[in-house]
């Protein structure tokens, strides 16, 4: 990337000034940041918005001091943050000041992936994109452009692309993250978990975490409720090959052998059924196929499970009983990132079934019934009908997929089947770190006629793009309304707090402008997003003025449990909780989950596990200088005995080599007692090799790079990624 002159940095675009000026009539927003603000408003100004450092979308209040962005705090009126942001949210202002931010639209000048660019105007960039898109449409049809997106910011681009005729739309949050969980629960209860999770941790008397490391994983409301559960002395049971922070808060820690969770779950259910500790009334009333289920799980004793999981027989029995004593306020947490071993939908189903036995679905301290603020959609013209089926799941190969499969689109892009995919539009998701097997992603990219990345930072995937469009960070833009399903209904707004420092634009502006260039201007009947927001809010009996001032408007608190009036309904084929799943059986799958033994690591290799840090989100925050100060690089956790055997010292840099000979960046060893001897662990998101991401370049190692192998869940298409093994290379 060319260096950007000071003059360019200072340039204020005509449009942004207009946007901020319009906003300032309603709330005291000043024109721009410290560097560009000419009429500094003296003193403190507070502007409500909602956070974008992760997808939780916590309500926040940004503070300006003498016109310059100072800090950001939680909005006390927000049911998600309850006035306290997580560390990433608190550090969110670092996203604004990140010196590595994308500043101007870029068009590739050399080979893909070489990261050689020329800076262009928005008109040039969008004209280029539009002409390529028109060409793809005439040669292959609009279905040959695919959209990958993460987060609420993708809404307007999705709208433009749907208007153009795109139907292949996908997010890694399904097939690389929470998909198996939602499928497993849907197969059982007829309904998924959703985001934010419908878990009533707040009222659980017994909380079971399987691999879920709340506290390190800072999904704000979940982490807050977890700490509260610890304070209330509810019984916490943690199952994890690594002694997580959550494990240190647990009454019972089960140091499970990786890949054997289903064996443990079966044994727990075996104990609960054998000792008749389940919620008999609930199961009789709502359950389907319980007898067959009970017969299926009868061989899976704790003695059997011990040989698979390494968990002490008595510990299995005791924890099963503790769960039962606390029913129905026992919450076996379904987790979030659950694409581990390729049989993840069945593991999630086992978790659902254990919850079902304890009667926690629909009950206080279990799973509540969420609802959301009803805001009618904007009355847009109808989208054109796609002429072809989606490519991600041909012939319904994964019969219980409930969302589009990113890796299915990638596969179609490589093979050209069922039809060629020639354009990728990527919003705010770094596919190089999010999808397993980088080589396949790059292979797919080589078949494209157009690849566009819209993002705030130059991620690895941006490095492969033909056109990179720099987006304003959340503190500089409006976005769509936030009305997640939760315990109570609410609507939140994201609004500009400061001016963009360079030529970045909000996603809605990009989407609208691109629609114009594609001749689809009629799909944006509004001129400015404020009109759109006001229209929708008016339709819901609210106003933009009011929401801009308050940030969050709370609605009602409808009933959320069976006991306070929710009618128990289970939209499964049987209309009941499916202990035995005929639809799975009919499709050739186990109607009750079965355990398959995981592959053993080759001699001298260790299973690679990965997880989250409280101070980073995915691979998106490593160049945020505030968060970088908290954690600059990741470490590989190696058990003390293993480190001794291999002569590894704490803090020493090594490289990891996987079973396919792929070698990582250098990474520090953390020698610890807090992990089993058969696996190693690292925090996801580090090991950047995008040259433009100067602050994060070469710091730590990328688990994604080492995840060359993945196991596809035959039920729903998720990619199990904890199936790679690594060994240590001490030459760095």
């Amino acid at each position, binding site marked *: 990337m060319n260096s950007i002159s000071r003059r360019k940095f200072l340039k204020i675009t005509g449009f942004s000034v207009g946007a901020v000026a319009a906003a300032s009539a309603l709330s005291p927003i000043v024109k721009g940041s410290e560097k560009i603000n000419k009429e500094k408003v003296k003193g403190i100004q507070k502007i409500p918005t909602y956070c974008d450092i992760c997808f939780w979308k916590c309500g926040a209040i940004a503070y300006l001091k003498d016109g310059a962005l*100072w*800090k*950001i*705090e*939680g909005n006390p009126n927000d049911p998600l943050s309850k006035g*306290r*942001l*997580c*560390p990433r949210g*608190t*550090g969110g*202002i670092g996203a604004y000041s990140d010196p590595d931010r994308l500043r101007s639209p870029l068009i590739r000048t050399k080979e893909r992936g070489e990261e050689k660019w020329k800076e262009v105007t928005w008109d040039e960039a969008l004209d280029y994109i539009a002409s390529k898109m028109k060409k793809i449409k005439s040669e292959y049809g609009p279905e040959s452009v695919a959209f990958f997106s993460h987060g609420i910011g993708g809404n307007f681009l999705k709208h433009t692309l749907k208007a153009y005729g795109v139907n292949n739309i996908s997010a890694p949050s399904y097939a690389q993250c929470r998909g198996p969980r939602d499928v497993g629960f849907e197969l059982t209860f007829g309904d998924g978990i959703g985001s934010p999770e419908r878990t009533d941790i707040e009222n659980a008397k017994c909380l079971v975490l399987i691999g879920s490391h*709340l*506290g*390190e994983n*800072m999904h*704000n409301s979940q*982490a*807050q409720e*977890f*700490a*509260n559960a*610890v*304070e209330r002395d509810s019984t916490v049971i943690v199952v994890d090959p690594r*002694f997580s*922070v*959550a*494990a*240190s*808060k647990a009454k019972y*820690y089960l*140091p499970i052998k990786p890949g054997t969770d289903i064996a443990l779950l079966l044994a727990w259910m075996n104990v609960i059924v054998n000792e008749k500790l389940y919620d008999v009334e609930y199961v009789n009333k709502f359950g389907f196929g319980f007898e067959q289920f009970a017969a299926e799980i009868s061989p899976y004793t704790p003695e059997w499970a011990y040989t698979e999981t390494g968990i002490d027989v008595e510990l299995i029995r005791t924890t099963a009983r503790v769960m039962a004593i606390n029913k129905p306020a026992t919450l076996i947490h379904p987790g979030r990132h659950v694409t581990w071993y390729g049989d993840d939908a069945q593991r999630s189903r086992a978790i659902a079934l254990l919850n079902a036995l304890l009667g926690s679905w629909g009950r206080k301290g279990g799973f509540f019934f969420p609802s959301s603020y009803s805001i009618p959609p904007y009355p847009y013209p109808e989208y054109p009908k796609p002429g072809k089926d989606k490519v991600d799941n041909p012939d319904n190969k994964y019969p219980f997929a409930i969302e589009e499969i990113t890796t299915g689109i990638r596969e179609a892009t490589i093979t050209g089947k069922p039809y060629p995919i020639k354009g990728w539009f990527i919003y705010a998701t770094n596919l190089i770190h999010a999808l397993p097997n980088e080589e396949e992603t790059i292979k797919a990219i080589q078949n494209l006629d157009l690849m566009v990345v819209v993002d705030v930072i130059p991620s690895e995937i941006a490095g492969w793009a033909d056109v990179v469009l720099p987006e304003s960070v959340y503190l500089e833009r409006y976005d769509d309304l936030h009305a997640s399903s939760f315990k109570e209904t609410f609507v939140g707004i994201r609004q500009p707090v400061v001016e963009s420092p360079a030529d970045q634009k909000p996603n809605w502006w990009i989407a609208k402008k691109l629609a114009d260039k594609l001749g689809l201007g009629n799909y944006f009947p509004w001129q400015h997003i404020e009109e759109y927001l006001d229209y929708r809010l008016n339709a819901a009996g609210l106003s933009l003025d009011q929401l801009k001032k308050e940030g969050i408007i709370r609605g009602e608190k409808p009933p959320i449990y069976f006991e306070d009036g929710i009618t128990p309904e289970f939209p499964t084929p049987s209309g009941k909780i499916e202990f035995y799943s005929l639809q799975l059986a009919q499709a050739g799958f186990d109607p009750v989950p079965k355990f398959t033994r995981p592959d053993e690591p080759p001699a001298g290799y260790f299973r690679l596990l990965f997880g989250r840090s*409280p*101070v980073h989100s995915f691979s998106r925050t490593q160049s945020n*200088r*505030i*968060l970088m*100060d*908290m*954690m600059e690089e990741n470490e590989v956790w190696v*058990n*003390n005995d293993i480190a001794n055997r291999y002569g590894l010292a704490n803090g020493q840099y090594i490289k990891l080599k996987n079973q396919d000979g792929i070698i990582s960046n250098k990474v520090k060893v953390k020698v*610890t*007692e*807090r*992990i*089993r001897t058969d696996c190693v662990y690292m925090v996801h998101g580090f090991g950047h090799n995008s040259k433009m991401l100067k602050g994060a370049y070469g710091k730590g190692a990328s688990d994604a790079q080492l995840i060359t192998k993945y196991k596809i869940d035959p039920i729903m298409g998720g990619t199990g990624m904890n199936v790679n093994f690594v060994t240590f290379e001490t030459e760095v």
Partner: protein
Amino acid sequence: MARFGMVIDTKKCVGCMDCVVACKTENNVPEGYNRDWIVTVSNGKFPDIHLEIQSQRCNHCDNTPCVSCCPTGASHVEEFGKIVLVTHNMCIGCKACVAACPYDARFVNPEGYADKCTFCMHRVEKGELPACVSVCPTHCMYFGDLDDPNSEVSKLIASRKNHTLIPEAGTSPRIYYLT
């Protein structure tokens, strides 16, 4: 006059570092420096491990080696809440206090003066909690007057098992960790 102190419940603390980030933004702590930090103490052999996570900062000690060693009087104890502070324009950056503090709580700010936790005096004077306390998502930090037996902090110290850091240094630190 009050004598401020802090109580931190290590049973609830998850080590998320929100307290560190909040201090940084609230007080504009320069890149590469922090006024508070997290220490994780891990004992035992897998899987029988005990973990204690401590959010650490200046202990605003009752006996202050950092004040007595200061040649200019910049390092001092405020009347307000007995907060230990540094007057920036009197500080010559000699690092005597940095060396004297057994907790390693001080650093020399790139602008040349000794810097450290102020117990967020600018907030506390206005009746607000310190930034780190007010942001903590697990609500594990408490702040108040140790001389008032009815304050939340005094009651927690009286009712829960707790310890301070390096008590043998004899500084009488005023941050208590509940265990």
